[in-house]
């Protein structure tokens, strides 16, 4: 379970610590972006143990010979109580990454740990599992999944066990191993990790810490690059989906951790586009949209919890991609709550300043709702619920937001004359006069496209545009250095505004 509060306490202690933390975090963020561009964005999680917190800061790194000594005692020890103490000491020593290298150099180190993992003493099992967990999180490339592979069949087997804490450890250890290589994932698949996860989530469905761990491990399995073609179909066929979906509620007691993990799993499944029909058939769209509506309500009340965006993000992506899985008419029963549209308009307003990318993705989902052949009911609903002004308010904002909004408005305008008239009533024409002046040529081009659709649909809209002083703006745009813009502006002036565009030959002799 993720002790976000604990981390926050540490951060809040001293001002200089905070600055340093922010600086480190910024540097880290840059690294992550670079990693993502190289398709190497990978994260591992380290489960903190209860006694780790107490001793925070007082641990000294053991010298290498001390580590070796500890290991020898574990290896040769016969007294189980002592062995448990030694294993615990070893585990604590492994908090320091330098100890990892020392340990793996010892002959049969992993085999010994595995022996204890399966041994008769539950406490030894636990400590051995913790040791392996520390190793799975190692920053050293030598301590990779290949080294740890002896442990995996046991770890997988234990997923069907009853002990939540132990299971949690096994899950996170496996989850940390997943991203390492395709070979590892193939091996885990062959060893039956997916049915094991399916069992696990059912056995421990009331223990949300374990559910979170299952979600994490599954997300690591399916989000890695070059995921083999067999993993996702196996997940889809495994019966995991309904269990993931059942987690999608807002449980205020426990926190958002489990829901977040399951939502990211659903996102990875949906965007892989292996069999989105199956996902939809099992009710994914319905559950995701209901949760989005609930979150929309939370946002509207102004009681946004920290980390809520981590949940909204994957839900939006999942819904956005699932909307392409079939004709909208067929999906409509799962999309019948019109408050979804309201939520999709509320998220950008709420997250514009903190997470503009989330605002953009929310509008992207609206695009997918309004761009299909049978989107007219959604477009009509946007007017009925008076949501269009909220969209128009987003037009000043860059970061891809205004372009996506213009797409949505263009989609609506393409529906027909009634829609264009309603758009004008909602105040689109003066807003377009402003977007036509913007620096980004793509914004200008899209604005011209929307304007064309509006003016072509009804001459009174052209007149209204002129009344809004749009004509000089178009005339100015005719001299843009972008041909695409010039052509469109000229076309509009010639075809839709002829009574106004007079060529004055009397100005100079």
């Amino acid at each position, binding site marked *: 379970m993720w002790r976000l509060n604990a981390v926050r306490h540490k951060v809040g202690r001293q001002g200089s610590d905070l600055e340093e933390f922010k600086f480190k975090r910024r540097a880290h963020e840059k690294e992550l972006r670079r990693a993502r561009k190289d398709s190497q964005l990978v994260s591992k999680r380290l489960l903190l143990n209860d006694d780790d917190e107490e001793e925070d800061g007082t641990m000294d790194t053991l010298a290498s010979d001390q580590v070796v000594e500890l290991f020898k005692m574990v290896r040769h020890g016969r007294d189980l109580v002592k062995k448990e103490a030694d294993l615990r000491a070893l585990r604590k020593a492994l908090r320091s990454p330098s100890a990892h290298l020392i340990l793996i150099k010892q002959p049969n180190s992993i085999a010994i740990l595995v022996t204890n993992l399966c041994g008769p003493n539950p406490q030894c099992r636990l400590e051995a599992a913790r040791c392996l967990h520390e190793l799975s999180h190692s920053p050293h490339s030598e301590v990779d999944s290949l080294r740890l592979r002896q442990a995996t069949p046991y770890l997988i087997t234990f997923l069907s066990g009853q002990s939540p804490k132990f299971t949690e450890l096994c899950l996170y250890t496996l989850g940390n191993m997943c991203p390492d290589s395709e070979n590892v994932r193939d091996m885990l698949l062959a060893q039956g990790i997916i049915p094991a996860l399916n069992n696990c989530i059912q056995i421990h469905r009331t223990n949300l810490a374990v559910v979170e761990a299952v979600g994490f491990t599954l997300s690591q399995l399916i989000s890695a690059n070059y995921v083999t073609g067999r993993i996702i179909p196996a997940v889809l066929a495994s019966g995991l989906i309904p269990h993931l979906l059942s987690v999608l509620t807002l449980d205020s007691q426990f926190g958002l951790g489990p829901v977040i993990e399951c939502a990211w799993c659903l996102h990875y499944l949906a965007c892989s586009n292996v069999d989105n029909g199956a996902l939809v058939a099992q009710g994914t769209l319905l559950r995701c949209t209901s949760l989005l509506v609930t979150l929309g309500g939370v946002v509207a009340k102004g009681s946004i919890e920290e980390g809520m965006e981590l949940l909204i993000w994957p839900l939006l992506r999942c819904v956005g991609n699932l909307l392409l899985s079939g004709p909208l008419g067929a999906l409509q029963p799962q999309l019948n709550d019109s408050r979804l549209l309201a939520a999709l308009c509320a998220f950008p307003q709420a997250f514009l300043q903190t997470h503009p990318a989330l605002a953009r993705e929310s509008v992207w989902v609206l695009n997918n709702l309004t761009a299909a052949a049978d989107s007219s009911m959604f477009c009509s609903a946007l007017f009925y619920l008076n949501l269009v002004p909220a969209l128009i308010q987003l037009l000043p904002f860059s970061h891809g937001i*205004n372009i996506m909004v213009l797409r949505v408005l263009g989609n609506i305008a393409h529906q027909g004359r009634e829609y264009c008239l309603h758009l004008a009533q909602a105040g689109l024409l003066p807003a377009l006069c402003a977007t036509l002046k913007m620096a980004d040529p793509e914004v200008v081009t899209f604005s011209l496209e929307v304007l064309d659709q509006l003016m072509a649909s009804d001459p009174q809209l052209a007149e209204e545009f002129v009344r809004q002083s749009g004509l000089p703006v178009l005339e100015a745009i005719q001299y843009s250095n972008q041909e695409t813009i010039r052509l469109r502006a000229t076309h509009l002036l010639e075809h839709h505004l002829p009574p106004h565009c007079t060529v004055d030959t009397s100005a100079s*002799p």
Partner: protein
Amino acid sequence: MLPPELIQLLTASDLVDLRIDAIPKLQVGFRPESLFSSFTSQDGEAKLTFTFIPHQIPLNKDHEFFEDGDIHRHLYLQNLSTCPAYDSPTARQCEFRCHISGCSQVFSTVEDYEHHYNTLHRHVCSSCQRSLPSARLLDIHIQEWHDSLFSILAERQDMYQCLVEGCGLKYRTREQRKDHMIKIHKYPSDFMFDKAKRIKNIKIAKKNMLQKGTSMEVSMSVSEPKGVCEVLSDQPEEEEYMEINHSLEPGILDPAGNPINTVELSTDHDTAPILSVTIQPTTNQQRPQHNRERHSYRVPRTVCFGQGSVQGFRGRGRRI
């Protein structure tokens, strides 16, 4: 923050019927006829020019559209996202850019842009690219400087109008008019009756300034460009009241109003392709004059647009 209607919609606890299929659907489709011309031919041409078609957009997990969200997720996984002041990228308001080919100035508010446009691009004389503050002054300018009939008439009668709106008096010479405006309308004697008020920044290349001004000349130190085209020497050198003189580029019209060959003006900053702008309503706009990829545009003198003609001129860089 959120409009109250939206809040109401999302937080209402009473069971209002919010089903999408219960909402009345607006009629789709367009009228078959259009008032201006036959819809089909217009439609056909429109299809070539306007290319937007509504379409759903699928995104796979590695798409750059998803980058920020992924980064946020991984910061969370690595326990780095809990920080009081998270420096995520915030949404910026879009910048505004002047669209006049070659102007390309960027502004952070629409008011700044409009001020720029109104100052420099409206009421521009198509002969000499000077921008006047109002339509009336533009008319007077054209009449006094570019109307050959005017100079003939001015020999016989009072043609120089008082510049103050509503006055209506006319004088035989510029000096008389100036005196009138100083005495009667209390204009300061150092008002720029005959010299341009140079508002432009020094990035503009000036034309060749043959210094035959009066003592009222106010010149800013502007670096002389190299290799100015000499075609412009025919132009009147004296500046005019309150004009803003854009760089007189090669490629403008000669006094007879014929387009001339353009010569690239070399300056000490970024290459600026600009040349005056043309509009030919029915044909293609481009007429490349050079091996370079830039295009030139010219406005025939006889064409002027209702709201003030637009001309190309040099001036790049950001104004905040």
